[in-house]
């Protein structure tokens, strides 16, 4: 049970590190998707129970995993997907306007 948490921690930090250090806009968006997936992994971990079956009760069962985090994970996947789509649209827009994907080159706004 320790290893998954290590993986999640590494993924989360990797994503955050990508967001705050990378200069390429696409890479920044990738960082967001990495963090997003690490959060979804946490949802899965929270609901996981050793030996449990999926929460679809069409046959006999003795242990079922927690259905709530799975439902919440679905919600956050959709939200994350929407946000990523909007971000990508903005990146395309910025690329068309400035002909660059480098964050440092967009300095219309200062202060």
């Amino acid at each position, binding site marked *: 049970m320790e290893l998954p948490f290590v993986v999640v921690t590494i993924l*989360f930090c990797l994503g*955050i590190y990508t*967001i705050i250090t990378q200069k390429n*806009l696409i890479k*920044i968006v990738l960082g*967001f998707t990495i*963090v*997003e997936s690490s*959060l979804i992994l*946490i*949802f899965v971990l*929270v609901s996981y129970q050793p030996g449990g079956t999926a929460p679809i009760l069409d046959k006999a069962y003795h242990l079922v995993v927690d259905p*709530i*985090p799975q439902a*919440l994970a679905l*919600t*956050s996947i959709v*939200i994350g997907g*929407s*946000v990523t789509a*909007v*971000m990508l649209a*903005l*990146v395309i*827009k*910025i690329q068309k*306007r*400035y002909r660059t994907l480098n964050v440092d080159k*967009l300095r*219309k*706004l200062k*202060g």
Partner: protein
Amino acid sequence: MQAAIWLIILPLLTAFFIGISKVFYSYKLLFPLVTGSAILYLYLLISVIDHSYPPKVYSVGDWGLLGINIMVDPFSGLLLLMIALLFLPVIVFSLKYITFHTHNYFILTYIMTAGIAGMVLTADLFNLYVFLEVSSLSSCALVALKKTNKAIEGTFKYLVMSTLGSFFILLATILTYDLTGTLNMAEISVAFQDIPFQIKSILMAFFIFGYAIKIGLIPLHAWLPDSYEESPIPYNVLSSGLVMKSAVYALIRVLYILFGFDFLDETGMLQIGVVWGVVTFLIAHLLAFQQSNVIRLLAYSSIAQIAYITIGLFVGTERGLIGGNFHILNHAIMKGTLFFVIAIFHYSLTAVDIKDLKGLGFRFPLLSFTFVVASLAIVGLPPFNGFISKWLIVEAALDAGFIYAAFSILVGTFLSLTYYLKVIVTLYTKTDKTIEMKEPGLALKLPTIFLGSLCIVFGIAPSLPLSLIDKIPTFLLDHEEYISILLGG
């Protein structure tokens, strides 16, 4: 309490119907749909605010504690009051002001309002996150509405920062569920009593970091002026008045209800909050002083005012909470007025730089007077409303022993006076340049003057809103009462 749920559904329904009417009827149905629903919404808001004391719980789907509950208490009543005061004026103003992507503007505005109403009403932690995301994504969309380079860039910045904040909030929410096995705020609060101190404080740090980004406290503020600069100005009224305030609301809800006042006291979060507030407004005032663009100036001023609110809410006494909450209301009104006046100047002669405002005081005597009133109120001079709430905050800080905070607020008042005076003096400087301009109609002037007059009314008779605000601290300082009401259904 059926009306409470309508506060969330009605704007959503309106937004969806505007989407359909855009395809089939183009502009014909827009006006009746938008105004009709805004007036109906005002009526619903008033009826809900009227019943906000004693607090009531409404269970969505009749599930009781198994499902999602929404709750109206005086604190959410205050935020609803702000929506009631700002929403109809903004809609009336926008109908005249917005000339591009009109349908999308109204769709997104209504969705944003629904998101804010949801955040304010919900008593469920994950639901809070969902509505937070609804309001912040639609708010990002409104920033991008003009599609200029600056607007696109500002939107990207805003979206990146606010999503970063949401991640931390979501992380804390998941772990809270893992620890307590429930998402109902009252049940979490009860279950949190057995959780070790260390876990709770790390969770609290995540919540605070996430919401601090959305609020725009100082090291995390960079997105705010950029996103304000090129967005449609009526949106700025809602943004500084409601979007930021709803984040403050959510933070306070989470801290005071989930963790409880005693825990905040124990961790020293109250001291950190006050210091953070002091640093924020001092820096924000200094940055505002350098701006040449009025909208950016107002944006920095917003950051500073939010910091005053933070101080008031984190002082941790009853009087501090009253002062902070009163300032939430006052800031929405004052900043709304200022943005409206600038929007009219922008509409008439596309003036957004301070130097463009030269001599406008003689062309628009009434509007400029409103501007002066609102800016003096925001600086905190008597007899306007800003003075009273600021005075309450200073008094509370002195009572609780935060002498440095009280002293810095006085310094901050002086600093803000300097830059607002700069604008006012420019307004009343005579110039012989003749400028072409569009005459602003009554639809633009009326909302502005309405909000401006509220500055004076609440200054002279502060007891009007204070009768609602006085009841807030009972449910925040002692979360037992809130919990028992929410658990009791």
